[in-house]
């Protein structure tokens, strides 16, 4: 294998992992600007030169879509960023987004050889650099694309799974219509993940690309209510349907006081801000109720986003309550780090038992128990058990619950015979096929809450499977 980097390995490991410029934590919590400004060209080149160009690039095995990491890093070392971008796009349709939100520390960077003794190569940040460079220098949406003329496919839901599937199918010549219930496209990328992690411009440019590919998008269509799957296929002339409606239904704790005024699901809180612009009330008409002291319950990315958003909206005290310990926390390490920098007080081994309110039913506090870790449970994580006599009340006026979500049941309930499994997820095979011919599903809808990159992978697989299905159909006797 040809190495591109003239440095020998000893020199490479001496280069420190490059750090991105970040907004100073002191002032950051008052703005929605993106926290990390990414690498500049010089930093990207330095970081790329840390890569060992391994004969067996295990980084690629760690990536759910198998991005050719070594390859694009070598392109970078040759200063051929355009080729790097093309190489990444071969397996990853949304690199600017994945570079920002992938849990790299448990995927590509977890596998990286460099990480065994030193810090792993900052693959995510490099991917982001390449994608942002591409957008600035040769925007993909300006490249001419032939108008698709093939069979029609409906994509239900415009999150990463739906967007990826739509783009893939359009490139294969299908006429694709994306149907979205909300008034704006993007799914969780729009209403869930805040701007300080994923600027809307990054999402919007992916959407422009979709438009350039000839994909039709229709907002304000709740499939199941506005139109059913059967109607799409039998009356509207769609040959196949890809379901990507996500896992949007929030779970609650089921503790007393949860319906007091000032208790939000993270979905509601984040939607009010990210989709409706409640932080700009009253210029924007949607309000949000936020106390001076706020508690967020949960330990995933959703909880982190909620608590950091609460800080930015002016919460003076923001607690994050998590019933297990730091090791079990599912959020991205970078987000936990940023949250702590921004003054979020993370209470591990703390589990709420009751939300307390006043006569007007406004929240005044959250009663918690301290936990300790007992024997491992089915998931292999040690089960938290309450310490007797450890009950205490934290004074807060707002509680945000971020303890997980389930698929929205509307499509399943209105599509006769569609096979579902535990918690209402739609059952699919390895090619994203459901038990209904011509109906495919993927993303959080079939996984019950996963990641952007896995949703994207499902979208790609579904596109390939839909292509197969249509081709086979052409051979099938009518």
């Amino acid at each position: 294998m040809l190495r591109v980097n003239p440095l020998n390995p000893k020199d490479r490991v001496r280069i420190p992992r490059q750090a991105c410029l970040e907004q100073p934590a002191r002032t950051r919590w008052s703005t929605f600007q993106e926290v990390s400004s990414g690498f500049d060209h010089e930093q990207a080149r330095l970081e790329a030169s840390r890569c060992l160009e391994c004969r067996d690039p295990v980084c690629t095995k760690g990536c759910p879509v198998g991005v050719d990491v070594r390859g694009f890093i070598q392109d970078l070392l040759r200063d051929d960023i355009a080729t790097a971008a093309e190489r990444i796009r071969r397996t990853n349709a949304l690199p600017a987004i994945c570079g920002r939100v992938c849990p790299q520390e448990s995927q590509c960077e977890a596998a990286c050889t460099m990480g065994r003794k030193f810090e792993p190569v900052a693959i995510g940040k490099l991917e982001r650099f390449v994608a942002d460079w591409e957008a600035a220098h040769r925007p993909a949406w300006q490249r001419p694309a032939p108008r698709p003329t093939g069979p029609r496919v409906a994509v239900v839901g415009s999150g990463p799974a739906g967007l990826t599937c739509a783009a893939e199918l359009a490139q294969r010549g299908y006429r694709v219509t994306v149907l979205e219930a909300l008034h704006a496209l993007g799914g969780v990328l729009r209403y869930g993940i805040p701007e300080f992690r994923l600027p809307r411009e990054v999402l919007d440019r992916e959407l422009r690309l979709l438009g350039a590919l000839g994909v039709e998008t229709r907002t304000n269509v709740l499939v199941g209510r506005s139109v059913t799957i059967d109607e799409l296929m039998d009356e509207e002339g769609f040959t196949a349907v890809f379901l990507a409606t996500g896992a949007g239904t929030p779970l609650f704790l089921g503790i007393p006081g949860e319906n007091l005024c000032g208790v939000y699901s993270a979905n509601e809180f984040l939607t009010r801000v990210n989709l409706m612009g409640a932080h700009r009330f009253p210029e924007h008409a949607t309000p949000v109720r936020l106390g001076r002291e706020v508690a967020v319950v949960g330990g995933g990315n959703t909880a982190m986003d909620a608590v950091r958003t609460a800080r930015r909206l002016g919460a003076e005290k923001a607690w994050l309550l998590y019933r297990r310990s730091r090791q079990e926390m599912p959020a991205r390490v970078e987000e936990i780090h940023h949250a702590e920098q921004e003054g979020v007080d993370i209470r591990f081994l703390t589990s709420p038992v009751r939300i307390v309110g006043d006569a007007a039913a406004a929240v005044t506090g959250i009663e918690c128990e301290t936990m300790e870790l007992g024997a491992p449970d089915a998931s292999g994580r040690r089960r938290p058990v309450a310490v007797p006599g450890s009950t205490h009340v934290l004074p807060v006026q707002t509680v945000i619950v971020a303890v997980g979500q389930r698929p929205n049941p509307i499509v399943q309930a209105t599509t006769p015979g569609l096979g579902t499994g535990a918690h209402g997820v739609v059952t699919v095979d390895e090619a994203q096929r459901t038990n209904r011919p011509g109906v495919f599903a993927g993303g959080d809808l079939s996984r019950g809450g996963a990641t952007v990159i896995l949703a994207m992978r499902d979208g790609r697989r579904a596109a390939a499977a839909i292509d197969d299905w249509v081709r086979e159909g052409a051979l099938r006797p009518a």
Partner: protein
Amino acid sequence: MFPIRAAHPLSGSITRFTVEAPLVARKWRAGQFVIVRIAEGGERIPLTVVTADRADGCITLIVQAVGRTTRELCALRAGDALADVLGPLGNPTPIGRHGRVACVGGGVGTAELLPIARALREAGNEVQAVIGARTRDLIILEDEMRECAATLALTTDDGSYGRRGLVVGPLEEALRAPAGLDAVYAIGPLPMMRAVAEATRPFAVKTYVSLNAIMLDGTGMCGGCRVTLDGQTRFACVDGPEFDGHAVDFDELLRRNAAYAEHEREADRRWHEGCASRGAA
């Protein structure tokens, strides 16, 4: 965009709109609603679809101006357009063949009740309508209700029209009458629906109420519209909007609906200031 074909005032504060929304018109059934956003930066608010014309692709909405968004909406005219109309949402009203049914409407709730009263009548029920409002100006759709009802009682709080008092007065008489009632459908302000549910409880008459919880997406994604029924949490937008009135925790819902009172006052103040400066200019 969803063009407004027609806008007619029904009273000082209530306007009837005809809006082009073909998808909604095609699927709509009595009891279902839409979520509307007037323009960029606007709020998403739920409004009941009063009728739909499938052939024409239009729906009818009847809106009472009570706060910032509804006031902005009621200022729109034919030729204007709404940015977003999503629907039809919620479950259609279960229209059974009960026998003698009272349809009780309060204020603008009468608009939401009308399609249900019509459907009940078509299903072979005898409809006894009771409609009430604070004052004469807020009594709407009297003729339309009369058309589908066997009897119609009218009440106003101030006695300016019909009988002075609340809708529960005529309702209780109907409950006590020898023939009695087999079911009650009530739509209006929460205190009114609670009073109706309390009135029918001793008679064990099935009572449907339509809960106007504060909504955001209307698709089951936020949980902001949650209500408690017999100790269980439900989402009004997907599990409702109609529920068994005897199971609803009205106190909780009343408190939840007041959650943004301060914000609403602030928005109102701004709106009036805006009007004043527009007027001055």
